[in-house]
């Protein structure tokens, strides 16, 4: 494999504590050497990328995406979803198991990672916690793990029953897997299509109360507490309510291994963005009140939130061009996560660049135990994003690499333009220059 040199860029690698001008040598899919500007001994035939004026960082890691394969290739394929991820600066994505059929087997887990899928970056399958994600019978976690699964979840649906959730936590801990909970007490959300509150009343839509999320998070934390086993790791997916975040904060103070992620739409948008029944503002959990949204921002700034994850959920245009209550939940997010995070978390709310990048790479990688990802220390995977941190640009959903364009961020101003995304030493995305 040929070597690749990234020269003249400003390297920010929060996990390694690096923040300065560095040249990087990538070789055989790994980071081979890091040196001050001009200090690298260039091997013959090495390709050189000139990153002068650009920021060089560990490739981004999204631990919550829906790639829709197997079964729903009309919404997204592993090839198109990872192309969108690469365009967004991501080099690792963890793919949720609510495919058709549900990924509850070693066979499907392997199928998703096969080179034949045409992924342009690394895909880490997350397997279903229960058979068919029906919340009744646990899957064989050891087999799933050896096939490459990095966590278990029934995402899209909760693991609702107390005894099943307890067994899931125990069995996953035994093989060293995290349990990711989609915290929604579905007994409280029947027929609901947005956040419960004045806006839902006004629009004549049935609402999902915040307790449907926080109640289940509290229940899960109680189970983790009772288990008294420090191998147990509970991760709360797409946290959207102040009450759920308070529960996570409390659990952490008690020393429990409870982590959480927040999606860009939950730290930027509120239920008001549903506007006149905009189905691209419909997702689950729903956009919440301004108070909940403000809490998400505060929690990111003060460090309680462990990761930013997009919950990238592509749907075909015709599926979203229907009555609001009949539209499927979810929005795309892979190409807007970095631009929105830099525009708002960094520029507007002054979160240091290193912390923003850590929330998008080092922390999520560590959370799922993705070794050699989320850092550019020598010996790590050569997963790199090179971007212009000052560039402002407008996201145009029509130009997406995803198969779908169901996003509420069409036309929004982004900050930070990805120039190159490098996955294990190969250029996976290069911006048209």
């Amino acid at each position, binding site marked *: 494999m040929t070597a690749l040199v990234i020269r003249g860029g400003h390297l920010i690698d929060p996990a390694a504590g690096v923040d300065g001008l560095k040249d990087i040598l990538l070789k055989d899919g790994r980071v081979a050497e890091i040196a001050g500007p001009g200090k690298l001994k260039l091997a013959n035939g090495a390709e050189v990328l000139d990153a002068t004026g650009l920021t060089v960082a560990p490739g981004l890691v999204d631990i919550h995406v829906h790639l829709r394969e197997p079964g729903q290739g009309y919404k997204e394929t592993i090839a198109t979803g990872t192309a969108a991820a690469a365009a967004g600066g991501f080099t690792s994505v963890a793919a949720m198991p609510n495919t058709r059929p549900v990924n509850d087997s070693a066979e499907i887990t392997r199928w998703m990672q096969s080179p034949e899928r045409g992924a342009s970056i690394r895909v880490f399958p997350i397997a279903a916690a229960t058979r068919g994600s029906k919340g009744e019978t646990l899957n064989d976690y050891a087999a799933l793990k050896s096939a490459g699964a990095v966590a278990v979840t029934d995402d899209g649906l909760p693991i609702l029953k107390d005894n099943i959730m307890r067994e899931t936590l125990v069995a996953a801990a035994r093989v060293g897997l995290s349990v990711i909970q989609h915290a929604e007490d579905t007994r409280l959300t029947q027929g609901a299509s947005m956040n419960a509150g*004045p806006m*839902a009343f006004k*629009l004549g839509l049935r609402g999902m109360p915040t307790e449907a999320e926080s109640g289940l998070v509290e229940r899960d934390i109680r189970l983790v507490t009772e288990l008294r086993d420090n191998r147990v790791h509970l991760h709360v997916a797409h946290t959207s309510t102040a009450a759920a975040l308070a529960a996570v904060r409390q659990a952490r103070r008690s020393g429990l291994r409870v982590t959480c992620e927040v999606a860009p739409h939950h730290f*930027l948008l509120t239920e008001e963005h549903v506007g006149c029944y905009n189905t691209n503002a419909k997702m689950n959990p729903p956009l919440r009140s301004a108070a909940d949204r403000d809490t998400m921002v505060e929690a990111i700034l003060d460090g309680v939130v462990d990761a930013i994850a997009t919950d990238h959920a592509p749907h075909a245009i015709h599926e979203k*061009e229907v009555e609001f*209550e009949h539209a499927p939940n979810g929005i795309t997010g892979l190409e807007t996560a970095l631009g929105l995070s830099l525009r708002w978390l960094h520029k507007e709310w002054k979160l240091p660049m290193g912390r923003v990048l850590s929330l998008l790479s080092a922390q999520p990688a560590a959370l799922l135990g993705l070794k050699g990802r989320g850092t550019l220390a020598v010996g790590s995977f050569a997963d790199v994003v090179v971007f212009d941190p000052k560039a402002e640009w407008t996201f145009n959903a029509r130009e997406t690499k995803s198969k779908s364009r169901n996003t509420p961020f069409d036309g929004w101003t982004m900050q930070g333009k990805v120039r190159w995304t490098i996955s294990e030493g190969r250029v996976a995305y290069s911006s048209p220059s």
Partner: protein
Amino acid sequence: MTLAVTPTRRTLHLPTAPASLFPFNRGSLLSASDLSLEEIGRLLARATALEDQDPLTRERILAKRRVALLFYESSTRTRTSFELAAKALGADTTLVSSLSSSIEKGETLKDTGLTLRALGAEAIILRHNSSGAPWLLEAETRLPVLNAGDGMHEHPTQALLDLRTLLAHLRPGVEALTAETLAGITVTIVGDILHSRVARSNMQLLPRLGARILVCGPKELLPEVAAQAGPGITIERNFEAALRQSQAVMMLRIQAERLAGLQLDLEQYKANYQLTGQRLATQAPEAIVLHPGPIIRGLEVTAGVADGPQSVILEQVKNGVAVRMAVVERALGAGSKQGGRA
């Protein structure tokens, strides 16, 4: 004495929701909030003028113009009323209902709308069981869309006809509408507020003319959040107390089809919220009684009240035709200024 120091919270500048692009078509009536008071005044004046006009002249106004009625729910009053209104102006109407059409075969609202447009429909009157459906139809067809009731959301022409009825009794002779026109008037809306599009449209419209709205009903049918639906709205769960303050009382049907598993003790409901002759005579002997229909006699109102001297229920029905003539005329851009196409 110690002064407690509250931690200062950062003030965050956050993105705000974009302004609505709706309605795309100036002839549309999606929500009661689409109309300014001036426009409402104009519509009510046109309703009166059209009602008084010679039927043979009137039917030239929209002669041979095509209006589609697209109904996903059963309806007697609204459908007939819109149809008679459009026909009175000379328009050709066609009715498409969810049964006996391609909707049954799974055709989407978008495709049905585009098909109607291709068939020459110049406006669509839509009744739909999903809240927000008229917004979807308007965005996809860009035709004038008249909301004839969408799910639990709105029923703007009902609010207009209710306003016409209220004005006739409480403010006879008033012409221009202002934010004070109904000042001093209290209207109580009683019953299944949660599932009622009539309530939501009236709660939107009437406070803008200065009316005070009391909403009355049990918690299951009237959640606390209703008080935040807009200014001028107060919850009063005691029916007698509400009646005593009211110049008008609007009774609603319990929408069994939208209860979604909710169990209600109907005997208890009647004991607390049924409008009986005795309640009316003792608490609100001067108030007028409205009901958007359909009435379930013996449940929310007794037969005696429905047929009694304070009832204006049939006037509402009659006002419906007049108001809808004005709304259909506006939809096709054939208002008095343009003088119609004929």
